């Protein structure tokens, strides 16, 4: 196992190597008009940071992402729990859930704009839908997969159904729920940005789209870089929360069911 410090160092070196390659390619092999360059992007970022104009866009995108994330996660987790414990209801709803989940979210985005306007609401709702399904399916499989022997052991000890819910079902579902939440974060962000691409007057998606329409690859790549940074930061926060919540588990590969947007 590589030490933490070294890992960080190598990661930094790899990033610098990529930037150096980009800088060297730009202007020598490819016209900067197409790919801009790290120095140009830095100047752009410095400018939008110092005049503060980036923060308004960032705030809107983060607002849409996290509001949608919390509502979607809450709805997804609770429906997952309820349906996993109501066999008949789950069977009735099954084809509808499959069908609804099959619709590409991007196809819904323009409709949501028509219904809920070009403001943040339409993006929030798009994010809610995205996060709902990811957390729903994970929670549902988690509750379904609870070890029946563990429940029986508690029954033999005289536990009530309520005690079994809190002492067995919920804790054994937590790894699934955290997996659902973890993979939801980047998708939530993508949902918000895609919504902004289609119609918006503010947000990182809007900024990238606006710059692209002016053929400013520098501005577009700058926006994308900010987006990437946000994803990395969120991921770090989630990894730490997960490591704490699941400290009782042996280390193993995380099961993730990736879903195409």
């Amino acid at each position, binding site marked *: 196992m590589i030490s933490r410090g070294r890992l960080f160092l190598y990661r930094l070196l790899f990033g610098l190597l990529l930037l150096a390659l980009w800088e060297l390619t730009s202007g020598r092999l490819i016209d900067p008009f197409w790919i801009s360059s790290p120095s140009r992007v830095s100047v752009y970022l410095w400018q939008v940071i110092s005049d503060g104009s980036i923060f308004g866009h960032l705030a809107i995108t983060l607002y849409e992402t996290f509001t949608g994330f919390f509502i979607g996660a809450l709805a997804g987790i609770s429906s997952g729990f309820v349906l996993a414990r109501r066999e008949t209801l789950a069977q009735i709803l099954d084809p509808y859930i499959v069908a609804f989940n099959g619709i590409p979210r991007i196809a819904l985005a323009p409709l949501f704009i028509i219904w809920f306007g070009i403001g943040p609401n339409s993006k929030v709702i798009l994010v809610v839908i995205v996060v709902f399904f990811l957390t729903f399916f994970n929670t549902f499989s988690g509750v379904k997969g609870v070890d029946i022997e*563990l429940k029986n052991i*508690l029954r*033999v*000890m*005289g536990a009530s159904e309520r005690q079994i819910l809190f002492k067995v079902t919920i804790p*054994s579902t*937590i790894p699934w729920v955290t997996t659902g939440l973890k993979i939801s974060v980047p998708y939530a962000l993508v949902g918000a940005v895609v919504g902004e691409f289609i119609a918006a007057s503010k947000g990182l998606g809007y900024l990238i789209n606006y710059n692209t329409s002016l053929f400013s690859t520098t501005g577009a790549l700058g926006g994308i870089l900010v987006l990437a940074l946000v994803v990395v930061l969120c991921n770090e926060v989630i990894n730490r929360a997960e490591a704490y919540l699941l400290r*009782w*588990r*042996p280390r193993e590969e995380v099961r993730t069911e990736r879903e195409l947007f």
Partner: protein
Amino acid sequence: MAQLLTVEGISKEFNVRGKKVLALDSLALGMDHGEFVTVVGPSGCGKSTLLNLVVGLLPPSAGRIVFRGRAVNGINPEIGYVTQKDNLLPWRTLIENVELSLEIRGVEKSVRRRRAEELIDRVGLNGFEEHYPHELSGGMRQRANIIRTLIYDPELILMDEPFGPLDAQTRIVLQDQLLKLWSANRKTILFITHDLIEAITLADRVIVMTSRPGRVKHIAAVPIPRPRDVYQIHTSREFQEVYERLWRELRPEVIMTEV
């Protein structure tokens, strides 16, 4: 005095993909208060099924189980069950697992802590209280599995091959510990094993089951005085005698299962 447990001619039939499989066939046995009874039988003869029926996790297809003079109907929380798999809750530390049944009964935290620590000490698990199950060895997990059942003091304790997956040395150490725990408060134990030596070492009586469908084939009392030295017991003459007699009964059943 009436027996603590009587199993009155129970049969159990399973439906396996449309086909009926008879696991137990009119099996009968009785247990007195404070008795240590072991059951041996070839694998698949219905030993685990028997315990599941006694504790009430499964209903019998015929016959009935009487515990303290009452017919068992549904799960009976007066019976403790040490399952074959340790079934510790993986998200609870060792001590939290041991305390679980008292927590369910609403026993105050400081009281249950003290009780748990006492038992953890008795089986030499001190120092591992805050470890999660995956950080413990198989032998440690099985000890935890046993003491978390002892802690709530059920009148009858069922044990399903609790030492089955352990290596020979660990088994003997745990047999010794189990006998000491048992002689300290003399609960009634019904203990399943596929190891005849283990069965004789521990028991007041050994029950031999037939191959499937499981029935009681033979019952032998073990006239070896207690306390017993589990490290030496198998060299004694009484042990050899009981062993030979039981092996004569068990051998054809095991061979029938092999072919």
